[in-house]
């Protein structure tokens, strides 16, 4: 009786694992979200590939800066060329600014000429909260072993001024290059900048 009781207590304590904040060098938080094609995507299905997560909101001026100048699209294309999987994630809650339906998100991808592998819809904000995504854009790079290698800003120019893109230090590009060539990533975490995620 006592033994089975203790087993039960132990089992319960195992199920009650506390949600841990994402940390560089740790396994990236697992997630499961539906993409704009209605397909459920998980982090584990991309094991063996580098994954880039991009939190986005089409109405945000910081996002507009990078899409308006073609900077984000270029990065997406280059990432794909390098074999990385690019997932754009929309965590705006229904009724909040930036919330879009699957069709709306596809339309955005088309009109912006964006090239993500998939756009994930996260209206409940579960994926966003697991990653503690704060801003749009907020970028994460996960290596082929599922380990979080970079989190933070897209570059070192926290403004809405598109003129700053030229000559900016793009942390995501740096991280992807370093991972591809097996080098150490210079900046593994930075302050994200942008509009707040509209949970």
């Amino acid at each position, binding site marked *: 009786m006592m033994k089975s009781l*203790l087993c039960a207590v132990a089992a*319960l304590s195992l*199920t009650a694992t506390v949600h841990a904040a994402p940390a*560089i060098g740790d396994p990236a938080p697992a997630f499961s979200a539906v993409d704009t094609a209605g397909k459920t995507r998980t982090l584990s299905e991309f094991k063996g590939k580098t994954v880039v997560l991009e939190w986005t909101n089409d109405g945000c001026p910081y996002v507009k800066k990078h899409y308006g100048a073609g900077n984000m699209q270029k990065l997406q294309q280059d990432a794909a060329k390098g074999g990385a999987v690019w997932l754009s994630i929309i965590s705006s809650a229904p009724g909040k600014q930036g919330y879009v339906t699957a069709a709306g998100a596809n339309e955005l991808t088309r009109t912006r000429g964006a090239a993500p592998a998939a756009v994930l819809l996260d209206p409940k904000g579960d994926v966003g*909260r697991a990653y503690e995504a704060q801003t749009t854009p907020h970028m994460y790079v996960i290596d082929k072993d599922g380990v979080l290698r970079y989190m933070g800003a897209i570059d070192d120019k926290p403004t809405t001024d598109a003129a700053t893109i030229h000559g900016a230090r793009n942390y995501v590009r740096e991280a992807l290059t370093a991972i591809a060539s097996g080098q150490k990533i210079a900046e593994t975490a930075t302050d*994200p900048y942008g509009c*707040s995620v509209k949970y």
Partner: protein
Amino acid sequence: MRFVSALLALLMVVVASAQAADLATTPRVEARLVAEVTGVPAAGGTISLALHQKMQEGWHTYWINPGESGEPTTLAWTLPEGFAASAIKWPYPERIPFGDLANYGYSNEVLLRVEIAVPEGLKPGSTITFKTEANWLVCKDVCIPESATLDLTLPVVDGAPPKNDAWKETFAAARAKEPKKESQPVIFTEFAATDKDVTLYFPALTAHVATGTQEPHTPKDFGKGAQFFPYTKGLIKASAPQVAVPVEKGFTITVPAGWRLRDAERRKETEAIEGVLVMRAIDTAVGEPDRVEAYEVSLSRGEVPAATPQIAAADLPLLQAILFAVLGGLILNLMPCVFPILSMKALALVQAGHAERPWADGLAYMLGVMATFAALGGALLWLRAMGEDVGWGFQLQSPLSVAALAYVLTLVGLNLSGVFNVGGSVQGMGQGLAQRGGLIGTFFTGVLAVIVAAPCTAPFMGAAMGYAFTQPSAITIAVFLALGFGLALPWVVVTLSPALVRLLPRPGAWMERFKQFLAFPMYAAVVWLVWVVSQQVTPEGLFRVMLGLVLLALAAWAFGVAQSRAARSERILLSGFVFLASLGASIALIALPFAPRTADGQPAAVDAAIPAEPYTAARLAALRAEGKPVFVNLTAAWCVSCLYNERVALSSNITAEAFKASGTIYLIGDWTNRNPEISALLKQHGREGVPLYLYYAPGASEPRILPQILNESLMLEVLGVSR
């Protein structure tokens, strides 16, 4: 020629003023470049200019550290030769929550002051034009980057320039909001950081907040709403509520670490945390504006005292704790949980009372009770030593043990109903009870009494148990033994006193009826336990438990039949039957799918008439920071005392009205399943189990701990509502 250049200069001034370029208006912000004085001193010195932003309702701009998103306002000056502008003298910000996130910034209006160094030898009568390019981000649910090029022309004057009447008050207010810089090293502040939390320690603030009042404030007075705003992003989680916890000297604020401090390398590099500490006095009268003081502080790395609040129960002297435990045990006899067992006990007593040595029976019972209490205490200690965070009632936080208890009570009920007998052949009921189990049976009645008593916590018990676990193991066990002593005491007293024994009715045929009747409280208890299980497991699990009950009853019936049949073959067959059925029942239990209900955060135990929210430490801290009165009810589905209180005192319309009238927020912590946050709150108040009722008056640093048995008038008094 001279005339022409003068004309040209004049013309330029006119053009500038025609543009009215000291003001820029967007649909969200009215931005104006303003000066504190009406002229520039010819002899040089320092004057203040500022960008004044007046925001539309709901819009805000940002502080130097914007928090979890956003961007601070910037000013790029174009000044005549010899002039220089300082950085913005930021007034302390407000915390602006947005969904899950929080920003540091300003709503309504803000004056961003800048000090301009004026060179010597200016010509009185001439004019100076100050020009700045202002960039800011203004957000509501959307963010708009805005910018304006503003300029302001002031005449050069002899002597000290007079103040600008239109703006001097706004400047004064903004200056008052600039954090005080401490030149003397009086505020020794320190921080300690792990990869999870940062603790900020402000030990010497007592002396400093004393300015302006007669009596020095204690840190507690200023603890309310104490908020630390770091200058650097990513050091702490900006959206986490901050609560000042008084320690022996000064106070601490513990907040989740931001990414910068979660990273081991960067944490090591962080030598200091700089920012602004904003404190609000709590001793202001109603209607009086909050007295706020803000300090610029630099926290260096160091040792901070553990922010463990005083454990109230630890102040109990040992003797008093033991006395409380005995009293608690005594009162436990009056609690509904033990009632079915006590009825059985009463029956046994009638029997034993007329036996030769009634006192032996009483002692066996007491031994059973005390041994079980000691075992439970030992198990608790052991689990804690293993790092488990458990408290009284832990044995019921596992659906497995609740279900097992339901099984045991079912068997007891079936036994009372006469489906089967314990201990061999059936004899005349008259001799049955005394002979059958004998002293061992009585011992196990004691064990059973303790097991079913778990859902009830009696007054005095909470404090005693809370005390027990702050003490060495021997004392913990002693307190548990004292509880058992108290629970068993009335029965021992009866059996020890021949006079009382003589008062008992004589055994007879009525006892059989009474025994059969007693099966029903048992079945009722089983129904209740199954209900508890239903709060803990999925519907499939519930199905298994109930199926197990049926199998168990089948086994008991087969066992009973076997007992009454002589034929050997039949016995073997029935034994197999018993075996298979009980095996089925055990499998049903063991494969119980767990579905801890804490995950969905819905309090399961209460169907409150009062709108309630689930308890979390963060929510409580946030409500307290807002200065709202809060009532916290820590409860569990298996806690009978809790359910009683909820029925009697917490679900009446009168109480509901009182909650509404007083604006008190009702938080329910459901401990039916294990929940570390609730365990922590219990421990903080020296408790090891539910119920615990806490009332946090607005601004109070400590809650009022209410008794474990509530009633309506007490609730009205607590909520400050008169009938």
